[in-house]
């Protein structure tokens, strides 16, 4: 099979990889570029574990050929700025919004994209935005609280 060279902008850095054009972006990020944040869950874009930001939008990287990945790519590794976690990342820690955490990076990416477009979402809007991200451990309530907290909203009424 023929390999091509692809130039990508990942977390602000120019990267070059040589691979077949149909190689999934996720595979390039994990194996060629050594990023562990985007995770393999299903390979069909159905679970959200592999979500990355492409031009500011959250999308699955497991079913996106590297040849079609135009625009700057940001993974959870690229979210912290000036040595500080992104507010969404910090809110996930503050709210202890995980159990196993395998799906967490995909959730964080979805939340960052949501808050970029809708800085003050309602709870229902947060849930709808996260509907493409699956969580098997049942940490949904905490994750929704974390996203609302990152949006600067009150999270009273939590169970504790």
């Amino acid at each position, binding site marked *: 099979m023929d390999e091509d060279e692809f130039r990508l902008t990942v977390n602000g850095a120019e990267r070059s990889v040589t691979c077949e054009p149909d190689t999934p972006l996720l595979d390039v990020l994990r194996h060629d570029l050594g990023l562990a944040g985007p995770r393999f*869950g299903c390979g069909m874009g159905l679970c959200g574990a592999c979500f990355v930001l492409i031009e500011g939008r959250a999308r699955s990287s497991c079913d996106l050929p590297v040849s079609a990945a135009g625009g700057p790519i940001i993974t959870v590794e690229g979210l912290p700025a000036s040595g500080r976690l992104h507010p969404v990342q910090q809110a996930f820690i503050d709210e202890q919004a995980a159990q196993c955490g395998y799906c967490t990076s995909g959730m964080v990416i979805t939340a960052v994209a949501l808050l970029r477009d809708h800085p003050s979402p309602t709870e229902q809007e947060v849930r709808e935005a996260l509907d493409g991200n699956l969580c098997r451990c*049942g940490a949904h309530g905490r994750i929704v609280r974390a996203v609302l907290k990152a949006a600067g909203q009150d999270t009273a009424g939590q169970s504790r």
Partner: protein
Amino acid sequence: MPASSPPLAGSLAANPVLARWLDFSRDGEVTIRSGKVEFGQGIWTALAQVAAEELQVALARVRVAPVSTSTSPDEGFTAGSRSVQDSGSALRQACALARDLLLAAAAARLEVSPAALTMTDGQIRTAAGPTGLSYWSLDAAGILDRPAGAPVPARPPGEWSVAGRSAPRLDIPDKVTGRPRFLHDLVLPDMAYGRVVRPPAVAAELSELPDPGLSREAVLVRDGSFLGVVAPTDRAALRAARQVARAARWRVTQSLPDPRDLRGFLLAAPSETLTVLDRPAGDAAGLVTRTLTAEFTRPFLAHASMAPSCAIARWDGGSVTVWSHSQGIFALRGAIAAGLGLEVGQVTVHHVEGAGAYGHNGADDVAMDAVLLARAAGGRAVRVLWTREDEMCWAPLGSAMLARLSAGLDAGGRIVTWRQDVWSNGFIGRPGSGGEPRLLPLAHLAGGRPMSPAPDGPPTGAMGSTRNAVPGYDIPGMHVTRHRLLDMPVRTSSLRSLGAHLNVFAIESFMDELAAAAGADPVEFRLAHLTDPRARQVLTEAARMAGWDTRGRRDGTGYGAGVARYKGDAGYCAAVAEVEADTDIRVRRLWLAVDVGRVINPDGVINQVEGGAVQSASWTLREQVRFDRDRITSAAWDSYPILRFTEVPEVMVRIVDTSGEAETGAGELAQGPVAGAIGNAVADAVGVRVRDLPLTREQVARAIEEN
């Protein structure tokens, strides 16, 4: 040990040497070793809190060592919600003993009485001030290289400063920043990548394998019907595996039951019948004026972990080292050795965290896949990742079940007799169970035999399919029977709470049916049959949280309650569900009250109960493994849907304070009571009892039609 000595706590009895549990070899740090593994349940944080409390050091000084068969205490499986009991109590005693031994050594060195010394964050002091001695300046390794002696008093919970308070989980910062932490992220030097090619049906034999035309970099592994490939990259391995799958020819035997008639399958398959409890009602039996009977079923359920199973193996001459996210690395070591005819000492298994696990999933099987494929890779490490389809179709499943209940009421509406018969495949199919390795690829090797039907443990109300089949209510006559299937067309093993999910769903649904027959409020009816004060307390509290007595009556909205003591002897949980039934069945809110005795990490308990409640709601409302006569067909998330963010209920959890009671686990408490509460709320909302899970719109429509 003299017979008069009190028993050693938890797993300390089987692993008495103190140095096995903790050391001070890193300056300023305490390393603790547990045989219990982390898979997102937060156990390491709780264990670190226990150690910090007894050793009187800051939590940040405690490091939990990775679990390995070469260094960790053997604590069996991380299962059954027993980690705090087994490992927490052992660590508490080991750390208390270590603290006293090290203080005594310091006292001898200083020629003072141990009572004159105090401990502050590892530094040893007298009333006059620091002594210059600390845990790290004494010969801790030498002092702790001894078996645990008679227990010493642990710190009283009233004086706890680290344990008993919510502590942030140690693992979450890595997980929000994408730092490598999972086995799936581990890259060993010179590592190769393997993929397996599973048969196209549960029962299939490889009949022919024409040349798949692999590139030179890929190596084909073939042994009987076990097929796999090894290549320098995962991409190349995946490509080669697809080529092999296209080329392979199989002889398929239809082996699965009729998916439209699970009840018929469960009742018709040969089974082993054992009595779990036989307590005749005696004279009271004559008081029965009315008898009710009902059957409840659930389908096969999948673990459906977020990550497909993964493992790495590397051979070194005749020995093999395995990296695995198994819940039982010691049993896995034994099973690998038994499967290949090796000595146990030739196999080492290191645990590395995987995605959330809810029982016996594919972790052990993929470890054996990696061991087999690594034999073809010289001394190179080989990493094997299952596909999503492998995970959904080849990991063991939670068994389909049928519970037939009948109960006799007296003229006053009290339950006098209860009979419960449970049909199910076994739940105890982990590696080594019943003396068999029970690793999937072994059955596919040349000369390999199909796995025997899964065992189910001793026939008690605490184990296997009859877990929680003995109601916790005060009923004079009870008869509980287990029918374990002796055919296993669909491979089953341990899934969170084992039989408790269906048994409590059945018992709690039936309690509402009996309450209706007796003309009583469901919560009042339960309380009238419940003398255990802790069970009464959680039920009363959940009802109070939900506003049970003042709940509204709106068309299409229903409320239901459920309560159980997990395993009959562990933690208590009561749940109230609010359900809306219109075009779909939705659980809006769940209120849960739990009593897990003394609590190490309150937020950890709440997180586990919330998660258990959501997962149980998903099982109860949505989930069923689909199959045809050849194979499992629910191979992806679109054919095995689980609850999504817009569908999960809001969950309120309260811990009832019973800090004088021994601690119990929290991870499986909610599975049964939540199912029961939802079932009752659906019946309340639609006016018809639905006894077959999942409670989908279709099942509800069918129940209404049949009514």
